[in-house]
């Protein structure tokens, strides 16, 4: 059988990398479960409620998006709408160039990764510095994040220390606090020199027009401290109707992502510096990005738009733990990535049609999801779509089911097959004519064939 790319990646993965990711995700998942249960007796009710709020939002974007634009403009915020990744990059560049910005500091945004913003700005002569510690390492290593919340979960501190030495931040020292201090002092200069700051947004409240940004390192605050311009890059699905919805979602987000009651920094930004305020950017611009989201909304996978990017599904996923993030060949790895990546690909869906197959459909992702996304159902829907339009990438390792289903709809043939299966016991399985049997028997025994035995037992005893 042809190999699945994700399985091959897992087979070739260094053991140390796998165990770093396995240990890291397992610890976070277990802590998450304890903390959620300790604080909330009915955590599942909260997850479902949060899911309903987000589902309501994505199904009423036609109403909420114009409302939030009005609110943001009242705060003196510029609002931009971009339908594609290209137009979003171009819009950001235009905003920066219009103000003569040469140096940008950036807080972590998955959407920025999704549209390839940092590389685009670099190509257009704008220095864009990642200020999240993990993203900073990813940037200077020209690597890719392998986790939504912990971009360098695949790297050891020794690798990070080597990187720092290479870029001239002191001689090799893999003490975590030394690493942090060195990056911290390096970034101080960047914050002060930057003309503009770019952040994502975890939520925007339609009611108040507040942009909510959470970090643990406080880097988004530093970004905003000295910059004249605050640019926010946000997906159109990131709205919540009311401020009080944030209480629920922030509680769930931090616990699900990092097993914290709340992130260390939670910022509510309602516009640029007002008169009378001492600090803050003079200008604020929000760039709303669609990039395939409306198409997702129109599909039978719209539930994925509820996602709040906490990464809990990655942490619990046995496939992610074995294969690690880079196996998924895209910005979003793990269960959520196996749904999002093929959908975001638009007409290039077939290239990612193998991703939804990379799941035993165990459902652990749905069980931990803070907005209760039925990820296994969405994976199944994408598999069905892959069968229709997925091409070769969807067919890898997929057993042909036509003949099987034809037999399974004809009882007399089914019973004949049950008798014929006895041949399995006589045959060395490694020579079996069926590739699936060979694949199974490489690492596993097959039980003795007992085809039809129950039927005979049942018939015999009904005659007694």
């Amino acid at each position, binding site marked *: *059988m042809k190999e*699945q790319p994700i*399985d091959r990646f*897992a*087979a070739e993965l260094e053991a140390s990398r796998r165990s770093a990711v396995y240990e890291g995700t397992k610890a976070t998942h277990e802590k998450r479960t304890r903390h959620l249960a300790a604080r909330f007796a009915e955590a599942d009710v909260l997850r479902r409620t949060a899911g309903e709020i987000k589902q309501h939002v994505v199904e009423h974007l036609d109403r909420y998006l114009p409302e939030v634009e009005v609110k943001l403009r009242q705060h003196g915020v510029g609002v931009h709408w971009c339908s594609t990744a290209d137009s979003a990059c171009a819009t950001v560049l235009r905003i920066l160039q219009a103000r003569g910005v040469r140096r940008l500091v950036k807080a972590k945004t998955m959407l920025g990764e999704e549209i390839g913003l940092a590389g685009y700005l670099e190509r257009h002569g704008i220095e864009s510095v990642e200020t999240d510690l993990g993203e900073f390492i990813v940037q200077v290593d020209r690597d890719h994040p392998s986790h939504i919340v912990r971009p360098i979960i695949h790297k050891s501190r020794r690798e990070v220390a080597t990187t720092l030495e290479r870029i001239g931040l002191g001689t090799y020292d893999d003490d975590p606090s030394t690493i942090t201090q060195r990056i911290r002092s390096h970034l101080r200069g960047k914050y002060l020199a930057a003309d503009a700051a770019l952040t994502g947004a975890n939520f925007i409240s339609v009611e108040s027009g507040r942009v909510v940004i959470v970090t643990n390192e406080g880097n988004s605050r530093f970004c905003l401290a000295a910059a004249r311009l605050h640019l926010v890059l946000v997906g159109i699905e990131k709205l919540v109707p009311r401020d009080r919805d944030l209480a629920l979602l922030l509680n769930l987000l931090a616990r699900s992502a990092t097993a914290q009651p709340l992130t260390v920094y939670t910022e509510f930004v309602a516009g640029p510096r007002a008169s009378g305020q001492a600090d803050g950017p003079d200008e604020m611009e929000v760039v709303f990005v669609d990039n395939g989201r409306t198409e997702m909304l129109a599909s*039978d996978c719209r539930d994925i738009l509820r996602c709040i990017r906490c990464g809990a599904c990655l942490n*619990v996923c*046995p*496939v992610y733990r*074995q294969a690690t993030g880079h196996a998924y060949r895209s910005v979003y790895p793990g269960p959520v990535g196996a749904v999002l990546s093929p959908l975001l690909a638009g007409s290039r869906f077939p290239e990612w049609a193998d991703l939804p*197959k*990379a*799941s*035993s*459909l*165990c*459902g*652990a992702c*749905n*069980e931990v999801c803070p907005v209760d996304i039925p990820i296994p*159902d969405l994976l*199944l*829907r994408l*598999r*069905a*779509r*892959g*069968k229709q339009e997925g091409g070769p990438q*969807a067919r*890898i*390792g*997929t*057993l042909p*089911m*036509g003949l*099987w*289903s*034809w*037999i*399974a*709809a004809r*009882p007399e043939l*089914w019973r004949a097959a*049950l008798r014929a299966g006895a041949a399995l016991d006589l045959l060395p399985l490694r020579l079996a004519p069926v590739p*699936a049997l060979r*694949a*199974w028997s490489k*690492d*596993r*025994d097959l*039980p*003795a064939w*007992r*085809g*039809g*035995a*129950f*039927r005979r*037992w*049942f018939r015999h005893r009904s005659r007694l």
Partner: protein
Amino acid sequence: MATCLCDAFYDDVACATVEVLEHLGCTVEFPEGQTCCGQPAFNGGDWTASRRVVRHAVRTFAGSCPVVVPSGSCAAMLFHGALLEFEREPDRAAVEDLGRRAWELGDFVVNGLGVRTWPGRYAARVAFHRSCHSRGTASSAAAETLLGSIAGLTLIPFGEGEQCCGFGGTFSVSFPTISGSMGKLKLEHLRAARPEVVASGDMSCLMHLGGLAGKEGRPLRTRHLAQILRDSLRHGGSPS
């Protein structure tokens, strides 16, 4: 519904299911025309093929009787999976009707018939693996209620109980590396707990774990929930 795995490999599990239900006073019918629930093709994305098999199951199990399955996975296919692939089909109502009548065995005994304690005796330390398709259903809790009530039986916990055994149907053959690693990890956790018997409500998980263990030359003693319930009645003591 006996399931295709019991039809092909695990006849004793189907026999035990019949005996358990009869012990509770049920009259058990076995429609001879039955084959499979359609899940292999459903999971493979071939919904046209899968619907063909589901339609056959709907015809075979027509009527008003509860359809009891010794598998959380096949039961979930009937009451959840099939509904997804019949969302836009004209005969959806018939599929929904079968779904409403479909029960996983443990769930049926505890929540359908209201039985919460099990007679007899079964002297063993049992590690119960919660199969993934029983997530979000009452099945695992039901099985643990029954097993926990059996005299002599000790349920023992083990590490990472929420993790999948790695089977996943065709996943086990199309992702052999990842599936095998998941299974071996599960075996490690199970062996560390030193159970005498590893039990589950799904033979598919036990086939995977047992198959891996057998290949390693360290056989695992696996029993289906139905077998333990039956043996508890029959042997009045020791696992068969």
